[in-house]
């Protein structure tokens, strides 16, 4: 039986990798993937706690999040495609038209 703490540790590591990717990478595609990674880290904690506490609520949440993540990926990729058409670039630093 693997202790719950390890699941949480793994989730934390995954989340950190995702967060670091979002902050450090320039490729928008990669950033989106990192966002997915962070979301899945959260899913992992939900499932771990659900198992630990014997409650189904966490697992229901996970399904919910996976649905939202699918939608979010579809919308995010669509925006990205459109951005690429406009600027011929996927570099996040080129998208700065809101700069004050």
């Amino acid at each position, binding site marked *: 039986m693997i202790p719950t703490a390890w699941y949480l540790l793994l989730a934390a590591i995954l989340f950190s990798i995702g967060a670091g990717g979002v902050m450090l990478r320039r490729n928008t595609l990669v950033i989106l993937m990192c966002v997915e990674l962070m979301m899945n880290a959260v899913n992992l904690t939900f499932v771990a706690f659900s198992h630990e506490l014997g409650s189904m609520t966490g697992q229901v949440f996970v399904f919910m999040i996976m649905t939202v993540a699918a939608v979010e990926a579809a919308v995010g990729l669509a925006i990205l495609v459109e951005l690429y058409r406009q600027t011929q670039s996927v570099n996040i*630093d080129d998208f*700065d038209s809101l700069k*004050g």
Partner: protein
Amino acid sequence: MTNLIWLAIAFPLIGVFINGVFGKKLGEKTNGWLAVSMVALSFIIGLLAFLQVPNLPEHQQTVDLWRWITIGDFDVHFSLLVDPLSMIMTLVVTGVGLLIHIYAIGYMHGDEGVSRFFTYLNLFIASMLILVLSDNYLGLYVGWELVGACSYLLIGFWFFKDSAADAGKKAFIVNRVGDFGFALGVFLIWTTFGTLQYSGVFEAAGTVSTGVITAITALLFIGAIGKSAQLPLYVWLPDAMEGPTPVSALIHAATMVTAGVYMVARSNVLYALAPQTSMVVAVIGGVTALYAATIALVQFDLKRVLAYSTISQLGYMVMAVGVGAYASGIFHLATHAFFKALLFMAAGSVMHAANDVIDMRRLGGLKNKLPITYWTFVIGGLALAGFPLTAGFFSKDEILAKTFEANIWLYAIGVFTALLTAFYTFRAIFMTFHGEPKDADVAKHLHHETPVMTTPLVILAILSVLGGLMGLPAAFGLPNWLEGWLEPVFETMHRLVPAEAAHLTLGTEVGLMTLSSTLVILGIAAAMWVYLRSPQIAERTAQSAGWAYNLLVHKYYVDEIYDALFVNPARGLGKFFAKVVDMGVIDAVLVDGSAKTVGWLGQIAARWQTGYVRNYVVSIFVGAIVIGAYFFLR
């Protein structure tokens, strides 16, 4: 009929509405006759109510129209009072007003603003009736302010002339000083008595301490000083002559300026209970009478001579009410309304004939050209001078006799003023109507008199002679109708302040009358000597008494002193607030400053908006960590 007294106010207001809204379309003739007929209806209603007064219980009736203001226990009704005093005032206002309206049709003929003129004139009549008919101090105050506004509008009627616009502003601002005191007086009445109704105030007056009554009366009198052009707030009245002459006759001689005298006579109970204030009132009246008469001696503008004589005569009235001779004050108010309106309108007739020339040095020899104007002016002048058996003689002598009882020094001032009055009045007559025409240009282009203007003159001339019959001297066993008529008004006062029955003996009264008549005739004779027989005397006197003459010509430099003391400091203060406070502090620091600060803060905040998504993400994470740490460590 007394119940319908409100119609007397309503009719002129109908005139205001029609002339004010449709005036331009109706044409000059309709404007004038509409205004005249409205005032005539007012007069008829006033007359009918006047005839009813003796039949009323206690000679008075309150006509409660509607509840006006109710705030907590502050409850004022819009109600009118029909009593001997208000009816006398109503008749004077509407009667003299009617004649002046008729005269104005001729005088204003051809002016562009005739409809506007008659709108204002009707509005004035309505306002003045509110003033005299109100049965409480708030209504009196409202009327007081309304007539002030009408006065402003009519003085500045020819507003395209700078002098007229300035004179209007001056009248309004100077009156504001007085009205401020008046308003405070009304407030004090409310806090002291809890009511503003005359009857309630007078009934309770006996129970209030003398100090409070003195304060109330003094504050109210400050209003009267402004409105009735007494020292030191008289300065607006001479300048008010910039308005059209009917206005000078109606507002600045016959009616509005007497509002202060009316107010004191109306508040007779309060003034009788405040002997100190009454003393001040009498002294201010007497000094004003003398002071204005001396200035009138050397003026060359015919209308200004009359203006200063108005101030002087108002001084007599104020002196009368100050020594407690309220009925005499009202008597002189009525006769003065007749002869002063007459004199002003006759002067206006001269102006009209001479193409607006009013400087007496350019007139002269008009006696045969304008015979009706001349004779009516002479009759008015005789009444003003107090020539025996004219209206002015009886009313002025009654005041002088009452003053003699009260204070010998004031009597001396009054009787000396009578001498000056006779002199300057006839100086004006001789310079204007006698001698040779001094200006060929004026003489050549003289207009004729028109009946619409001379008829009111003749009627007023008759009144100026017969008006004295209202109050024949009682000491001679003659019936003094006016005193008996007004008696109910002073009943409360006599109950609270028993009068000492120290009446003059017949001999004293005859002596006083002889003295003043002699002085009047002396004054007229002196004017005749100086201005008809040997005009060089006047010039020589003016030269030999250089500094005194200069002092009078410059009206004691009062306007200059006021300029230096009040007007220029106020203007400087205004400039300081405009340049330094407004432009320097409010505009530069507060308005521009706040805009600049916001811009500057924006520039700083804009640096956070780098446009790099990763930076935003970092801040989101940092924020999330901080919030998380806070809840975790708490």
